[in-house]
């Protein structure tokens, strides 16, 4: 999926198949009307964000993060973990201390 503000001067639109592809990757099952709705919504989000393209960014270097922070680190000291029972409390399914998940492939 190529989501860029512009490609060769033309704004790229998100197509139905883009939405279907992303839904598949996220393991979401969408109905026909949902696909329509999300295609439309995602496009309007892109359009809204495109306002930023009007800014002159000459001489502004790309950023990797929105906060003016770096090197937020913690020391290598063990802290208590959750008890097994608590760790599994929200699991839809569990057995013998394991999370149980349905067929993977």
């Amino acid at each position, binding site marked *: 999926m190529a989501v860029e503000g512009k490609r060769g001067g033309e704004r790229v639109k998100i197509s139905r198949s883009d939405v279907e592809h992303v839904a598949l990757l996220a393991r979401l099952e969408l109905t026909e009307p949902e696909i329509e709705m999300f295609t439309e919504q995602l496009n309007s989000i892109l359009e809204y964000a495109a306002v930023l393209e009007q800014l002159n960014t000459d001489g502004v270097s790309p950023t990797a993060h929105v906060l003016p922070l770096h090197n937020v680190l913690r*020391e*290598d*000291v*063990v802290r208590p973990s*959750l008890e097994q029972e608590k760790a599994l409390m929200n699991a839809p399914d569990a057995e013998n201390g394991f*999370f149980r998940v349905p067929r*993977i*492939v």
Partner: protein
Amino acid sequence: MAWQDRYEMVCGVETHVELATKTKIFCGCSTEFGGEQNTHVCPVCLGMPGVLPVLNREVVNLAIKAGLALNCEIAEFSKFDRKNYYYPDLPKNYQTSQYDLPICTKGWVTIETEERVKKIGITRAHMEEDAGKLVHSGETIMSSDESYVDYNRTGVPLLEIVSEPDMRSVPEVLAYLEQLVQILQYTEVSDCRMEQGSVRFDINVSLRRLGADGFGIRTETKNLNSFSSVRRCLEYETERQAQVLNGGGQVIQETRTWDEGKGITLALRTKEEAHDYRYFPEPDLVPLVIGRDWVERIRTTLPELPAERRLRYLELGLSEYDAGVLVAAKPLADFFDRALIRFDQAKVLVNWVTGDFLRLLNANQQSAAESRLSPEQFAELMGLIDQGVISGKIGKNVLEEMYLTGKDPSLIVKEKNLAQISDEGTLLRIVDEVLAAHPQSVEDFRAGKEKAIGFLVGRVMKATKGQGNPGLVNRLLREKMT
């Protein structure tokens, strides 16, 4: 015709190594191996909503250290990214990794094979988190209706080290892996316990016609966790690709899996089905800025690396073989070095260390660091033999006793009364008895049969329970018979 007559192999390796930290990369859960399932987990590594990861400083220290040992450039500016994929071993549905700005780039390691010495390029090394462990209800993932997940390993820090496709033979690949693992062990970046899966290799391999410049189409076989699996996998996969090419076909670019039991690789997914990871910068972690002072501070903690140590041993006069045996097992080499401080005859010492001592270690499945016997005690034993207090043969018994009990060698010699008999008067009495008991051998010796002396020395040694000074016994016998 062997495929090697037509094709050349091109191989690159991605190595995942678990870093030797106490806690996980983004939370304070323990990284200890073997805990009861889902007991080293917390809201952060379980991917609960609303939690924030915080990077473990020690992970960065170890990544820099590995980078320096692998001759890499350490990036001044580095960041984390999300690699998105949907799989139950990953509770967040993304792995926090580094994509376009990894911490280490452009390094190399030097390998040596029978053919040549060669540099293998390191493209990059980046920090990331490990995934959890899956247990399947059926025999394989394909035949399982359900699977069980243990998230203890989720979030354990990994360094992924990517090599250039610089290797051209199986021995080169193995030499690279051995060298890499040695460097990681020497720097204590990882304990590299292969049997616990703390090092895993992904093998990229292709074939090309001899003399060709470009690369052929490659396959990637994932998750090999021993040198022998890598060797067998490469032997199988190159043979398979050669058959495809010889039959006029094309190798399919795909990810494959290694079946250890059957000794074959199997297709997992083709490039068309390849994951679309949709990497993007991790918004929950701020960038990492590593100044020169940080790098230099880590550089001062770098130990002597295996290649340097090997050279030092060769300069001490050790053989290539002995130097190799020592360097391959860091604890053994450390032991040797400490013993050498107190007993400076390197060649004598190495024979004992790589001989009787290593045999005892192997028989007990211990490393030199785990043995009760200290290098200082070992050096003392060498001294006792060197000074003739005990014979080499008795020394072997003392070594075994020391190994079992951890007692000082001088104490064992004293307690068991093992000191060598070097008193001429005592030995002469025994020599006379032996000569009187074996007139035939005396006659043989006088008739010029040198062999006879060996027999007579043996009898005297037996009479002294091995404690006679063999050199002295030999001399006394000769004097008596001529």
